[in-house]
């Protein structure tokens, strides 16, 4: 056995890699509209499903979608799934307190917005079917800098949260096909 102390066998090898990526055409348009307070998506010309944001294609039909397929949806919707996350510490993690991580199905959309914060209810009161409406940030505070082609960011920097509206819950039939 070697008598070298364990700590001498451990090597720090920190690497920084920087990636620069332009937003895709569809996300770029989506971001511009979002800053103006409009939520847009792509309606598949083949199956009619509305993807928010538009992907530039329909993943089910595997056909391209373009600006011509753009539709606007309202900023109201339904909570279709959620969890309360106790944050795990790691390099770069800023969250320290438990936070809501909810999926919201906007009215007229077929895809949910994941990872949304819900306000106007306590953690204990949060439930699926809850009706919510986007609480927009003041125009000058909105940002799309966190948005990326990898599906990160976007909504979180233009709205404060989705706030409970107090309307009656949506019927499960309305969103059961769109849980997550």
């Amino acid at each position, binding site marked *: 056995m070697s008598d070298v102390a364990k700590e001498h066998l451990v*090597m720090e*090898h920190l*690497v920084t*890699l*920087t*990636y*620069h*990526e*332009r937003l*895709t*055409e569809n996300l770029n348009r989506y971001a511009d509209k979002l800053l103006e307070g409009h939520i847009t998506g792509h309606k598949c010309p083949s199956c009619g499903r509305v993807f928010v944001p538009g*992907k*530039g*294609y329909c*993943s*089910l039909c*595997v*056909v*391209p979608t373009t600006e011509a397929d753009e539709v606007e949806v309202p900023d109201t919707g339904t909570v279709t799934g959620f969890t309360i996350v106790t944050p795990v510490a790691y390099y770069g993690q800023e969250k320290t307190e438990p936070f809501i991580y909810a999926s919201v199905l906007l009215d007229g959309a077929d895809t949910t917005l994941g990872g949304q914060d819900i306000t106007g209810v306590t953690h204990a009161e949060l439930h699926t079917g809850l009706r919510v409406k986007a609480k927009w940030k003041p125009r000058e505070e909105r940002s799309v800098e966190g948005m990326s*082609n*990898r*599906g990160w960011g976007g909504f979180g920097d233009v709205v404060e949260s989705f706030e409970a509206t107090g309307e009656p819950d949506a019927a499960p039939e309305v969103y059961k096909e769109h849980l997550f």
Partner: protein
Amino acid sequence: MPATDIAIVAYAQTPSVRDANPSEVQLLVPTVSAAVEMAGIDRREIGFTCAGSCDYLTGGPFAFVSNLEAAGAWPPISESHVEADGAWAMYEAWMRLQEGDIDIALAFGSGKSSPSNPAEVWAQQLDPYYLAPLGLDPVSLAGLQARALLDSGKATERDFAEVVARSRANAKSNPNAQLSGDYDVDALLAEPYYRAPLRKHDVPPISDGAVAVIMARGDTARRLCSRPAWIRGLDHRIEAHSPGVRDITSSSSTALAARKAGYDGGPLDVVELSATFSPQELILLDALGLPKDGGSTKINPSGGALAGNPIMAVGLVRILEAAARIIDGSANRALAHATGGPLLQQNLVCLLEGE
């Protein structure tokens, strides 16, 4: 013995470009669709799909998951993914076709090098304990290989320049190539060194791109394509990792893979080689027993990797380019090559024939 009645029947690729605005999956969606259309099949007829890409190139763990959206994965499909060039995805799909329970398979590869500095990313492919901490980037490594090749007496700097001139001249007829044109060898040799003895033109361009290939068995292949490119052999081999423990002026794993793929040294109409740096083309030709000018064999009629290098697609593009020449009747026997790892560590050889 593997079955030899499996053929490439359809294919598609994007042009190789410096900086594509579409995302990787957006590059793949029309590419896969075009290959399916060329085959004249319904997606549902595909019995197995395999994809090749690299998370670190895209810049996110699980980046490959998005690419599944180009495969038409609903209803569910039989599918797998290799963290490698699409040529290895094709190998897995070809293997799956051997079993006879399915007739058609799809393989694709994709990569965007534009978001990152590839020299930084691929430096992290080296042994993390002994090599990566040295900060060796792939271009400097290739410079060491080029120097070793010159020192061995097997090649000259003029040979490197001739490879580049041939590549770019051939690429003139390839609408998907990124670099093409007529270049004078003496003028190339007058350029300054970039990583001596390599000049900038000895180094591949940074490229984005995607490629898809559809294979079919026997009579299905004949039904889908009037002149299928039959895969007579497909094999890949890897060598030791550290460049210090192998002869980097030769490629024993290419020679071995070619032999295992059934290449007997007989005449070839076309070779398509993933020679990322110009000296590597000479090393690969030597490993295949071909002269520097190819003799009667046309070398990289597409222009090869020096004319467009969409990493993770570039190897499968070579197979596509070889197959396309069989399908269009301009070649009858072709060999295509793909590579992975530092300095040709891992190599794949595909031997293709017309009927």
